[in-house]
């Protein structure tokens, strides 16, 4: 995976020049008034924590997304004669147990991690993130709270845009951030307050994408079509495990977790969310994308028990 610094934080690749903010961004950040994407309750909680909003900061990166390109290693990975993905990632090969030979009968199948997709995603994510942090640094911010990242397509260009938005804040009487790089967190308001109250300081937002391609072999294909009796080790009429697809889903989740763990560098992950999207590219050919996001946090004080919660009933 690229897009990570030695400390584990997402960063832009080395060929992205520092200080490449557009002129409009520089102009906006130089104006006097602060802006914040915080809701009013989050704004109030932020003030209560001693955080002062400085500016709404953002970062973008538009990436071309090549799923099938010659540089993708797709053909190499999918060859029935070559084991492994060729990229050093996860792969599993499945072979037909029936002994049929026909053009329609898939005699082999493969689960294959797509590191080139994961790297491209990390590159887009890291670049957009770095630009947002660059904006925050230019404002002399200590951190960025309420980070939102949106990843979507641009018009119908077939490209993918990574868009980060957050509120840069300074800490009343706080020391400059470690290494001069502001910390960041997806949290704001009550969730951030509770995390800090519990003794955890935000370090950085962390995220990763794991992408696994599933090329079904005959047994998986029959099971996915609801046909019975052709399964591998089939023993009766009850529900059956679709082993190849189950393993691919499990692998995608484990890989996402593994990638994020690399970014934690011994710190803890809080408030993690996991999103899984599957896309069918052709019959028996699908991609499982698993995105894991969370907050890298570091303990800075012992747990201080909070006051017992007050039971409430809403009148709304």
């Amino acid at each position, binding site marked *: 995976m690229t897009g990570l610094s030695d400390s584990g934080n997402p960063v832009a690749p080395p060929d*992205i020049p520092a200080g490449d903010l*557009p002129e*409009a*961004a520089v*102009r*906006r950040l130089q*104006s*006097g*008034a*602060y*802006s*914040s*994407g*915080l*809701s*009013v309750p989050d*704004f*109030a*909680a932020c*003030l*209560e924590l001693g955080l002062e909003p400085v500016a*709404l900061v953002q970062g*973008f*990166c*538009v*990436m*071309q997304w*090549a799923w*099938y*390109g*010659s*540089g*993708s290693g797709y053909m190499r990975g999918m060859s029935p004669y070559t084991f492994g993905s060729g990229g050093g990632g996860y792969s599993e090969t499945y072979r037909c147990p029936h002994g049929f030979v026909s053009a329609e009968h898939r005699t082999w199948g493969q689960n294959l991690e797509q590191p*080139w*997709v994961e790297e491209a995603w990390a*590159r*887009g994510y890291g*670049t957009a993130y770095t630009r947002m942090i660059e904006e925050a640094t230019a404002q002399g911010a200590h951190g960025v709270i309420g980070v939102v990242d949106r990843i979507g397509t*641009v*018009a*119908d*260009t077939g*490209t993918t*845009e990574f*868009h980060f*938005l957050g509120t840069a804040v300074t800490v009343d009487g706080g020391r400059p951030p470690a290494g001069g790089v502001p910390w960041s967190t997806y949290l704001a308001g*009550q969730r951030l*307050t*509770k995390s800090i109250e519990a003794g955890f300081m935000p370090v950085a937002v962390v995220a990763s994408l794991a992408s696994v391609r599933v090329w079904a072999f005959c047994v998986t294909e029959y099971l996915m079509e609801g046909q019975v009796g052709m399964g591998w080790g089939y023993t009766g009429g009850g529900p059956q495990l679709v082993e190849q697809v189950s393993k691919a889903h499990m692998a995608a989740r484990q890989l996402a977790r593994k990638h994020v763990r690399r970014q934690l560098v011994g710190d803890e992950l809080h408030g993690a969310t996991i999103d899984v999207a599957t896309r069918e590219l052709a019959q028996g050919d699908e991609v499982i994308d698993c995105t894991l996001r969370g907050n890298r946090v570091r303990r800075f004080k012992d747990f201080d028990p*909070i*006051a*017992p*919660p*007050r*039971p*409430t*009933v*809403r*009148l*709304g």
Partner: protein
Amino acid sequence: MTDPSARVPGPEAHDLPKDAAHRLEELEHGLFTSDLSVNEFLLVKEAGFHPLGFVMGSSIYHIGIQTRKWGESQELTKLTEAMYTARELAMTRMEEEAEELGADGVVGVRLDVNYYEWGNDSAEFIAFGTAVKAEDGNSYRNALGKPFTSDLSGQDFWTLMQTGHVPQGLVMGTCVFHIAHRKLTQALGSMGQNVELPNFTQALYEARELAMTRMQDEAGRLNASGIVGVRLEEKSHQWGSHTIEFLALGTAVTRGTGEVTLPKPTTIISLDN
């Protein structure tokens, strides 16, 4: 492009329809209307304000056409001006209604755009909210001497007042941008590669920054110290997917002069489902 917000022609003064004047006259006799929920009403009262009436402003605007270059990303300044001016007209008329009621401000403002079959290339821009007046007799009008406007709910309005901040106005900035189509040679040049497309990145960056800068300029004219609850909306309206309006909206606020002690948050267990 020059800042569209700086040269809005401005609606005719007192151009409210007759029926609006009649409705507002009734409200002046003590009856109030509002779109506040019961909870919002409770908290607006708690913040020391009284609802005066439901106010609105509308503008049906013909949005012209502007040629765009197929392979070039650019701001469509005529469309930007149209989208800004139309919203500004609707907002100004809503403020006029609030003014008629002697309001200090308008809370819960919503801005909508509607399209009708009978109006090709036309759209109705509507602004509506609840006019409120302070019960302590102090004026809460903004730096321009007009009632403040804000898209904050009653709950948010109360919370903001607790932090010692006062809303100044709903501020916005817009930028209609044409995103270039990729030429065949460009697409072929990067085929099969996962790479950043710097032209697209810069174009989208520029468009959003322009919208946000214009919003901040509005806040500057109100002498605001900040903007809370900024939303960045993106819509293609009826222009096709390559032309996008980037709209930045938020409530400009100023910090009051008095010392404020923020209440310590209390942890709760909700007994609701």
